[in-house]
């Protein structure tokens, strides 16, 4: 058990280092950074001075190890545009993104778990097919478009919720719903298949033979076992959601790290972009580790092995 986790942790560190390298390469192989930073109207002297100022005239590998050494200490350099430490910028924006991700995950779970359970209990019926259709529709929904449509309906026509920003808590509702759409299909399907497997098992028959109530059979005995993979996939989905937050934060003008990345991209502020890619990747890696850990905690067969 401990060995398994040490191994998993070592792989996670290796993946993180690879992503670190890729994030560095991303800005170096895609063109001359100095020209990108200087902008279209810059003269050759401007470009040269930028090259000097940011150390871009050093050999690539020197730049790489310099950057890597700082990055592992949490120092991502300074933003060209915001004139602030990149780490400060990200720290200031992170709460919005995390809140959005958690709201999205909560909405996704609140929708998927009952739908999945319902579909499993009524397997093969029209209810099951309807739930399958809902999952399909969720999967086909362009999130940015859904965001705009919800803004028109709930923000403008019904005027129930704010159209953009998170000055008040209800600003998270619409973007949270949109974000949830990306996780609902897979979570619903997973809940359904897990429940079908659990409900057809012998221990459910035992639970019925013990005279337990229907609710206790479904939730305590059925869902408890179906939930094990769902919980770990939910953690992974949260990682995907945070990674995809750039689109939704832009649509709803939420000032989280996704929006920060988008601003920085349009301002050619690459240290920030690099750092956001890195931070989101590392959060994802951490969440997959957490998923494995939760899996082991929830499954006695793994926990006591």
């Amino acid at each position: 058990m401990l060995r398994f986790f040490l191994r998993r942790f070592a792989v996670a560190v290796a993946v993180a280092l690879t992503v670190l390298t890729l994030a560095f390469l991303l800005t170096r192989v895609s063109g001359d950074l100095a020209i990108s930073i200087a902008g279209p109207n810059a003269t050759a002297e401007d470009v040269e001075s930028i090259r000097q100022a940011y150390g871009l005239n050093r050999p690539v590998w020197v730049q790489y190890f310099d950057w890597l050494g700082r990055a592992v200490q949490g120092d991502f350099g300074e933003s060209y545009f915001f004139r602030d430490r990149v780490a400060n910028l990200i720290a200031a924006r992170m709460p919005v993104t995390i809140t959005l991700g958690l709201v999205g995950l909560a909405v996704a779970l609140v929708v998927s778990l009952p739908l999945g359970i319902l579909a499993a209990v009524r397997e093969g019926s029209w209810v099951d097919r309807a739930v399958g259709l809902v999952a399909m529709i969720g999967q086909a929904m362009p999130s940015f478009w859904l965001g705009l449509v919800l803004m028109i309906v709930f923000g403008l026509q019904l005027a129930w919720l704010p159209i953009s920003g998170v000055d008040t808590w209800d600003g998270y509702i619409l973007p949270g719903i949109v974000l949830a759409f990306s996780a609902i299909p897979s979570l619903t399907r997973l809940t359904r298949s897990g429940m079908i497997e659990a409900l057809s098992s012998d221990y459910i028959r035992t639970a019925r033979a013990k005279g337990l109530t229907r609710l206790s059979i479904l939730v305590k005995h059925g869902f408890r076992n179906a939930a094990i993979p769902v919980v770990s996939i939910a953690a992974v989905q949260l990682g995907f959601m945070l990674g995809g937050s750039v689109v939704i934060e832009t649509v709803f003008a939420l000032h989280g790290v996704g929006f920060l990345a988008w601003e920085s991209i349009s301002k050619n502020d690459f240290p920030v972009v690099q750092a956001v890619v890195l931070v989101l990747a590392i959060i994802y890696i951490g969440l997959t580790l957490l998923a494995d850990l939760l899996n082991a905690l929830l499954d006695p067969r793994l926990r006591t092995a």
Partner: protein
Amino acid sequence: MTALLEVRDLRVTIGSTAAVRGASITVNKGETHCLVGESGCGKSISALSVMGLLPRGSKRETTALRFAGEEIGTYGEKQMERLRGDRMAMIFQEPMTSLNPAYTVGSQMTEVLRRHRGTPRAQAVDRAAELLALVGITAPGLRLGQFPHQLSGGLRQRVMIAMALMCDPELLIADEPTTALDVTVQAQILRLLATLQKDLGLGILLITHDLGVVARIADRVSVMYAGEVVESAPTAALFADPEHPYTRGLLTCVPVPGKVKRGEPLGSIPGVVPRVTPGFTGCGFRDRCSQAHAACAGTIPRQAVADGHELLCTLSPGWGRQAAA
């Protein structure tokens, strides 16, 4: 004395299969009634329909389904829930998978008592420990905190039995409880059931295809074939005077010391149990029966061979002896 369980003319159809076709079974208080027959003859389905645990899509009909004198055939799901696990309990063939892997033995045992009696947790735990000891598990305190995957198959089946006894049921239905276990463990579990039956005055409906088991612990035997009880008798009578050709066939398949001579081949019944569709008439065994004749396709008479010995066959009781004489 009223019977503990009285099933009259049970019919179960699952989809397009007539799984049980007019079976009648009676279990008296403190009696072990064995239901024997090959796989697929409707034994398990009969047991499940008594418990109200039939799979979805199956239909049950009876003229009477009485438990301790009360008609339960008309009970709704809520009423059956209250009965199951409390006054009638059931254990299954697959001890490896019949316990929930996510909960400890103790949690799964105590939940029965908490559900039916509202017993506080501490008392329920005491009761569970007491029963684990009763079914011969050493260190019950330790076992209560363990998960099913930490126990062997034999231990799990003992846990299942202890769990079934939590509420002091009057009837225990055991569906091939020893089939999946090692031979030595099988013997232990059977001895345990026999002891419990004597000590607690349980009525047991034991399903098995093993005639050795029947000979050892049954008071009464019903032989099932293709959804019908073809012969039912007290154990001694059945072994001494098997009347139905199928019963005879089954008995020749079992080596009995002293009866089967060395070098003489054991019997076997050619063919397999047919899948019977609703609307089938006549004897289900006629295609495999050496005694079959035209009348076997008609209505089969139910005949009394002796007191408590019933036969469902066109042959007259005693045909075997006459043929031999």
